[in-house]
């Protein structure tokens, strides 16, 4: 654990000392504030629209931060060659994978907290804060979903040599899942033959990340989610993240690290 925390700490420090994260935050804030200051709809519509845009920006930014940061970790260690003094210490490759995961996930959590805090501030400003409980739940679910995304990007970084390729693939996969995974069963039902079977297979195998997206509930001011589904969703994310991390460790374990 001590080793994992030490590894994670380096990741977190790096993220807040780099400037790219602030750029995304400032951009999100600016767009939201500009939109918020123009009142071109009637009030309730305006509030919904503003929420929708802010939440979309938050989702996109969080995804970018999580994927890009995770995809960069191990390739950067290899490029700068710090992986060598690191693995010459009493540190196993499994600990490197886990420590990096922990660092990126905690760092994305911090970034996410900042974004959701901003969302609440904007809500208060427009006198439409919505339910605080639902806001916290949305943050929690979003963060759990990012655990799966971060684990996926770390696995990808061990499979594809170029971080940019890996990032792109992760974006496409995650966006694809978010947009389509929920409809795969309907699509499969409409499609006979092996195509349909494949879609059913995907429907059951892919992590249903779209379930973690409660933006609609926030926009339309639904009551908070009951505890049961929340716990199940958390476990569901934990299982997928763990599976992906085991796969990452499996790949990394046997990889020759030539200099």
């Amino acid at each position, binding site marked *: 654990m001590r080793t994992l925390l030490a590894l994670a700490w*380096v990741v977190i420090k790096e993220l807040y000392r780099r400037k790219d994260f602030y750029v995304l935050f400032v951009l999100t804030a600016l767009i939201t504030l500009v939109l918020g200051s123009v009142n071109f709809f009637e009030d309730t519509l305006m509030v919904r629209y503003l929420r929708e845009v802010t939440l979309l920006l938050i989702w996109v930014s969080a995804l970018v931060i999580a994927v890009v940061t995770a995809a960069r970790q191990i390739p950067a260690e290899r490029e700068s060659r710090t992986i060598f*003094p690191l*693995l*010459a*210490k009493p*540190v196993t490759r499994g600990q490197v994978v886990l420590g990096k995961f922990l660092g990126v996930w905690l760092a994305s959590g911090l970034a996410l907290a900042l974004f959701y805090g901003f969302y609440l501030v904007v809500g208060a400003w427009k006198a439409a804060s919505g339910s605080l409980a639902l806001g916290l739940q949305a943050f929690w679910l979003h963060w759990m979903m990012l655990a799966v995304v971060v684990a996926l990007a770390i696995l990808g970084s061990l499979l594809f040599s170029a971080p940019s390729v890996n990032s792109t693939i992760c974006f496409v996969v995650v966006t694809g899942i978010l947009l389509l995974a929920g409809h795969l069963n309907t699509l499969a039902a409409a499609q006979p033959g092996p195509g349909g079977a494949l879609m059913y297979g995907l429907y059951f195998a892919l992590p249903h990340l779209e379930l973690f997206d409660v933006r609609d509930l926030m926009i339309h001011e639904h009551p908070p989610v009951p505890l049961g589904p929340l716990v199940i969703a958390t476990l569901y994310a934990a299982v997928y993240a763990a599976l992906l991390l085991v796969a990452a460790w499996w790949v990394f374990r046997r990889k020759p690290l030539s*200099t």
Partner: protein
Amino acid sequence: MEPILRTDRLRVEYPPSRRGDPPKVAVKDLSLEVRQGEVFGFLGPNGAGKTTTMSVLLGFLAPTAGEAYLFGVNVRNPIARQRIGYLPELTYYYRFLTAEEILRFYARLFGLNGVEAERRIDRLLKLVELEHARNRQLKHYSKGMQQRVGLAQALINDPDLLILDEPTSGLDPLGRMKVREIIQRLKQEGKTVFFSSHELGEVETVCDRVAIVHQGELKVVGRVDELVRTHQANLEQVFLKIIGYPTCLAA
């Protein structure tokens, strides 16, 4: 007595860069022994297989054939690396951290923290003369300063065996002298040092024994003073002769 470092008919092949080519043999049947308390120079021209051999010792690469042992433990077992310090060649340490933070990070990997860790960090920063820059992020460091950070991190756990890959590369004459002093001090403390270098003058002054490898093969191993005596030449001339440099000893 069990040697501290031993390789037994070690062979390392890299996969070919093009399909159909034969694999690239970087190390061929290398058998070496380094004894407790020795300063051992691992010499050879560029591409001789020095870094590759060290990569096997540290578990970065699995050997194609043969075995390697540290403290009598096979290097496939991570326990073998408990009591070593390693300085890799050409490493760019974490750009966003300061020298102090980097050393603290490595110390924590050995379970060192608090007062004990801080005392070691202070002592090492003084040793490698980076005290003035300890709170600056490494992106502002020069190459030689990075190399000093590398040396400090290799010593953080007070190791019994040091494996140093070109410790003096990138250092100015003063820094090189300092490294020589550090190696000599480690020897006095009873530590074992295994290092590669191209600075043969230096090697001649600090090493007890040397091995010269060429194209992955061990060409010669022996005491520096004996090599110099039997060849009637300095180490540099012996080196050139052994790797078959055509005009050797012409001068």
